[in-house]
Structure formats: structure tokens, C-alpha cells
């Protein structure tokens, strides 16, 4: 987990509405990144118990969010208009060239007798709008959906209403690939992959703390495995608690495949 501490006197993160022309966002890690999922476990046991062949590298079955030794993630920049000239950088790591695309974004906006709302991303234009349920005016009367205009992230209705409106709008998005190489463990204590992405233009900018995938510092690209220090304990009432027995049994199992090589029992007799 990255640790970045941000302290501010006011709230300068988004400088001001008029200058708020660029927004940064990190592409989210897929669910279960860094974890052994139930499906992973079933596949692993299938191989161990029944010799099911799938692939030979168990760590590859778990999505560690890493590419080899590097953390690779997507950084999205959303400019308010196509000609916005901005620069982007990261405090640590290498950013690729940006790839621009126009995407459709869907949002549900809530109005409580208001005629304005904000979208999450700066808009390039509205595609559609539909009320979710009825819309009401100040007197409680049902009203048709008012005319909607949108500029950057500001949505304006022709009249104040109470209700929800789902809108679909166009968003300009530049995608950058950030590659972060693990810091030298000889000189680094923790937060091996931490980085801050920032972008700026004439008069404003935005930044974000890059989130590393879960367990990145701990496992690197081997998130499915551990250092292997687990141990067995035997509660008093454990019915399989080892006891002195009249036989010794030795089972030899091949470590990687789990195939039982031999299983021998030697009877021992008390003299």
C-alpha cells in the first residue's frame, strides 16, 4: 500500500471552477487483483488432487497487477476541450504517449428543486437525457423533463425540479500508461512503487496519488505465494491430533505437482 501524505491549508486541489479544465484519474485495479480467488483455489486443488493440467506457473493464475517486475497502470486525463494544451508527468515512473478517444459516459443526476448539477467528467456534449420516474416542481406537480444544457461539467435545466435524470454525454479522454519500476530495495525502506501523477496547463492543473495493487510492496509479481511461514497447531480437542501410534507412515509428495511418489507404512510393535 502506498503512503502519501497531503496537507493543505485550504482546498486548492481543484483550483477554481473557471480553471478546472483538466481532471486526472487512475484506471482502477480489477476486483481481486493481488488475491487468490476461489476459482484460483479450485484450479490449484484440481491440479494437486487430480493432476488437471492447465499451466505450470501458479503465480500467473493470480492477477498481481504487475507486468514482470513493474507496476503498470493507466492514467486517464480528461481535458475540458480538445485544444487544451497541457503537460503531464509522474513523480516516479515513466509515462507513455497519450492516446485520445471520445467515450460515452452515463450518470444519474439528482435534483432537489434545483436547476443545476455537476457531472463527474468534463463534457463534450450531451447525447441523451431521460427522467427516472416522475419529476416534480415546487408545488408538487408532475412536470415534463425540462430543457438541458451542458458546459464542461455543469448541467443546467431550464427550470428547477425534484427528481432524477439519467444523462449520457460525450467525454474526451487521453490514456497514458504509467510504468513504475520497483525502487532499489538496498536504498528504499517501503512504498517501493509510490508515485504521484500530475498534469498542468496555463492557469491550472490536477494531480493524484497513484494506487499500487494490493500487496505490491510485499509480493511484487508473486502475489499468489507467501514467504511460507505458516504452521499447524493442534487444539486440545482436535480429533486428528498426532498421538503415539503403532505404525509409522511416510508419504513422499512431489512438491510442484503434488503427485504422491510413495506411501509406505511400517508397523511398529511395543516390546
Amino acid at each position: 500500500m502506498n503512503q502519501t501524505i497531503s496537507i493543505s491549508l485550504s482546498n486548492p486541489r481543484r483550483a477554481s471552477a473557471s480553471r478546472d479544465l483538466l481532471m486526472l484519474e487512475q484506471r482502477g485495479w480489477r476486483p481481486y487483483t493481488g488475491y487468490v480467488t476461489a476459482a484460483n483455489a479450485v484450479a490449484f486443488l484440481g491440479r494437486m488432487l487430480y493432476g488437471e493440467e492447465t499451466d505450470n506457473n501458479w503465480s500467473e493464475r493470480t492477477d498481481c497487477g504487475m507486468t514482470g517486475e513493474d507496476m503498470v497502470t493507466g492514467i486517464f486525463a480528461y481535458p475540458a476541450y480538445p485544444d487544451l494544451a497541457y503537460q503531464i508527468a509522474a513523480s516516479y515512473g515513466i509515462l507513455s504517449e497519450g492516446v485520445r478517444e471520445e467515450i460515452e459516459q452515463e450518470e444519474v443526476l439528482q435534483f432537489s428543486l434545483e436547476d443545476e448539477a455537476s457531472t463527474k467528467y468534463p463534457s463534450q456534449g450531451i447525447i441523451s437525457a431521460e427522467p427516472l420516474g416522475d419529476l416534480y416542481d415546487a408545488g408538487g406537480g408532475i412536470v415534463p423533463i425540462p430543457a438541458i444544457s451542458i458546459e464542461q461539467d455543469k448541467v443546467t435545466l431550464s427550470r428547477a425540479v425534484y427528481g432524477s435524470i439519467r444523462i449520457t454525454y460525450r467525454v474526451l479522454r487521453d490514456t497514458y500508461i504509467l510504468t513504475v519500476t520497483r525502487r532499489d530495495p538496498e536504498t528504499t525502506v517501503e512504498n517501493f512503487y509510490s508515485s504521484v501523477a500530475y498534469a498542468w496547463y496555463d492557469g491550472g492543473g490536477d494531480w493524484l496519488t497513484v494506487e499500487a495493487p494490493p500487496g505490491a510492496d510485499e509480493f511484487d509479481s508473486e502475489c499468489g505465494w507467501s514467504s511460507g511461514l505458516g504452521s499447524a497447531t493442534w487444539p486440545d480437542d482436535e480429533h486428528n491430533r498426532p498421538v503415539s501410534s503403532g505404525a509409522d507412515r511416510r508419504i513422499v509428495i512431489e512438491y510442484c505437482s503434488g503427485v504422491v511418489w510413495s506411501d509406505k507404512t511400517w508397523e511398529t510393535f511395543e516390546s
Partner: protein
Amino acid sequence: MTTQSLSIALTGQDTGADTALERFVRLENWAWKMEAQYANYYDLYQMLTGARGGVSAWTYVPADCPISVQDGVVTVALPFYSYPSSFDFSYSVSTSIGTLGEPTRISEAREFDLVLDHATRIVLPYAVEAPSLEWQSPAFDRDWRVTDQPTITVEGNNSLRLSHACWGVVRLKCLAQGYLHTVQIRLVKQTTEEDENGDLNTTGYKIENLACSATAAWQSLPDEAGNTELETEVLEVEVPRCVEDYLATCEDGLPVMDVIGPDGKSKTVVYYSTCTGNIIHTTHNA
């Protein structure tokens, strides 16, 4: 509840009251590793090979999971830190449950990115020794124009002073000064047994929703009239998932397994302990 009082003076440090602008104690959870909280292939392999060797997989405790079972008593050891803003005042640490052991004075190497978000003074999360700073970005003014990087000086031993405000990223390396505390919580497992009348009786504590809070308390700096007041910091001590999972399997020790008889109508109900696998009780319904 157990309480400890702590007061240790650092030597060679500028911790005088005249430089102390504020006084606080920050509590911080132990950073549990993922391998202590979530099963991985190694754990599965150990449980599988154990089961093949005749040892129940229930007995396996993942690496670094702070739980032990002895004589029917589950002991959970939960560490946490306290970081005072300086070492020239006393404070107490207590926990809502469990027994606090003797604290250990620590000086841990820490390293993190610090975003200078137009502040001219930054209070660090702990008192530090041997701090070093390295710029990771240019400095920007409020209009995001590149500006001179300010001079950064360490004030007291717990804050940074910048010669002028800017946005920028610096990497701070330091030795964090504080204490490591460990609270030991002993729990008697809840078990269900059949008595001589054939009734099921449950004994022991129900060990679910384990929650422990730690509180640090200290006297504030005197105000203009010389008055002080008691200030506190509370931390919900993090319980690793492996502990919760272990305790959850022993929550009531009474899951039910139904078996339909050979005639397709009669039903056998088997009660067994999820902790041990032992059959506790069996009933037959025609």
C-alpha cells in the same frame, strides 16, 4: 482495561516546549501483511499435504497470523503503535479489552511521498530523527507555473517549515520515534456438548465480532490562562482477517448436515463442530 503511562526524554533532540506548537499522540495500526490475512497457494498446499498426512487442515495457521490455541483458550496478540509529537510530555495508553504488555520503544525507518499542497508548515505524523528529503517533482505556484523550490527546514522534530508555499512532491526518509504496544486477548472457545439428558449445552464465550479499541490520553499545552485539558486519541485496533476467519469457524461449533435415509424419507441430522470436525449430536427423524 489496562493503562500504561509513558514518558521518555530523547537526548540530543530539540524537543523543548518553546518549539512545540502542538501536542498530540497518534495511534497507528500494525501493518498486517496480506499473507497474514488471505490464503494463498502456499497455505493451500500446506493444508492439503497436511490432510494427506492425517492432520486436519483446520489446524493450519497462516504465517504471521497472531493467534494461538492452547488448552482450549484462543489467544490473540494485536500490536499497534503510539507516536507522540515529542517526548517531553507524558501520556497514557489503554485498551478496551485484553492485557497490555510492556511497550517497546521503537525507532523505525519510514519512507513515503509527501505532497506539498501549498502549505508552509507541515506537521509530520510522528516525531522523527535523521530526516532527509528529496524532491520528486518541480515546484508549482497556485497557477501551476513552475516556481523555485522552497527551502525546507525541520522544525522541532515533528514538522517541516517551507520558505514559501507551492505544490510539489518530496520523498521523506526518517526514523519514526514511538512505542510498539501489544494487547493480548484470551478467549475461551465456545463449545456445544450433549449432557446426560441428551440436551445440547453451550459453554464458553461467543467469540465473534472481536473488537478492541486503544485510547491515548494526555494533557494539552497550556492556553493563555495556563489551563490545560485532557485530550485523547482513539484507535480501533485492526484485527487481521485470518483471526476473524478462525474465530468465525468456531462461532457456535454447531453446523448441521442432513442425510436422507435409504428409504428416501427418514432423515438423519448430524451436528458437528466446524472447529474440530467432531460429531456432537445425531438425531434420526422418520
